[in-house]
């Protein structure tokens, strides 16, 4: 005959202690996982903004090439360094925040994303392009109008100081701290063209 001996179940206090310990671990783990997702968003957003800042700088510095001919019968869009004067502020950013560059009567609009609607809460919230509590449609990274300040005309060759804001609207909509998804960069470009710009 089979006999059971010495077997005892868990006591209530043991179960409660174990449950509490496991609960604390799961709570900490769950919180950590959610926070890790937020960290991932922040890090990837900053990397994207940085990448776009480089792309923007390179387009403005070196220019680009279009598919059709411009006013000087070439396909070249001249970068700031290849110009005599600064371009018009309005030629650098579309109404939806996309980077655009106009030179030689040609226009490049690189690196746009799918159109998205940002639910603005107030001016500059959650993105700099918000002007109030209305929706804002965006397709690009430039969060504000580009600031250009041309100087150096007294030397015969000028330069332009450039200040631009890069925003990641997708991340800004989801973030608890949207300011983390906008950043401002500045630089200076010297003009090296002697004759008038083709325009």
């Amino acid at each position: 005959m089979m006999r059971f001996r010495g077997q005892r179940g868990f006591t209530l206090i043991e179960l409660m202690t174990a449950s509490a310990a496991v609960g604390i671990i799961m709570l900490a783990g769950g919180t950590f996982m959610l926070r890790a997702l937020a960290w991932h968003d922040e890090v990837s957003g900053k990397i994207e903004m940085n990448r776009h800042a480089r792309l923007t700088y390179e387009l403005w510095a070196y220019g680009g090439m279009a598919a059709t001919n411009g006013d000087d019968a070439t396909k070249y869009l001249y970068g700031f360094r290849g110009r005599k004067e600064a371009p018009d502020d309005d030629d650098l950013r579309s109404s939806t925040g996309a980077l655009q560059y106009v030179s030689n009567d040609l226009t490049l609009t690189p690196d746009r994303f799918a159109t998205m609607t940002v639910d603005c809460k107030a001016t500059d919230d959650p993105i700099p392009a918000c002007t109030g509590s209305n929706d804002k449609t965006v397709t690009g990274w430039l969060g504000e109008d580009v600031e250009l300040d041309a100087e150096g005309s007294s030397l015969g060759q000028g330069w332009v100081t450039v200040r631009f804001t890069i925003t990641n609207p997708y991340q800004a909509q989801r973030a608890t701290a949207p300011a983390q998804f906008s950043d401002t960069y500045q630089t200076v470009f010297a003009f090296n063209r002697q004759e008038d710009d083709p325009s």
Partner: protein
Amino acid sequence: MTIARLIVKNLQRPPPGATNAASGQSLQPQRGFMLIDIMSAAVVLSIFIVGIGAFWITADRQVNELVLRQKAVLVANGELERLSVIYNHTSFGALGPVTTTGYEASVFPTTRLVYPNSLDPTYTSGGDDYVTTSSATFAGSEPKVWVRSQLLSSLNRSYVWISKSEGVMARLSWVSTDISPSPCTTGSCVCRSFLGIGTGSCRRISLFVEYPYRLVSGAPVAGSRLESVTLSTIVGRRS
């Protein structure tokens, strides 16, 4: 005994408390996890979680440093372009830069050049002077160069903003070396004197941008670890 044999032996061994039905032996006492087991597991998991958390914190800090470095690179490029214009079109290369010394030991020269206290009226006019000795003016204007003027001009230092919104600025200095490229020492491609009269030499400019510095009560305060961006170009008097 090999590891494989150990595994096989463990697989063949009945689990603790199992009944041998043929012999009618009683079951061994069964024990669940003890509190110390759970506590140990909690400690191990906590260490794991803290480790992963530290990874994210490190990643975030490094990305922030990357963003700051990108800004410093753009500013360095810009400052070199602006400096080149002054060298190329004025007598700045002959008379303008102030020689400074006393920089901390590093891979960079300890004797470097910085901007004078002002570019007007010798080198610029009409509001083109971007140099200021006023920390208040510098604090209110992003593209300015701030020259922190000292009693001994050799101790002057110059600074630029690399991220004004974050209050981060960089120390700006450069060295210049005469170069005489042999195909260009005679004829129409001769390098002119930086005074604008007669022949001279072109120069290689190496610009140093060191950061981060912060403006505290009108004085620059260096960060605990300085990073640097170095850029070079060749300048020659054109007009």
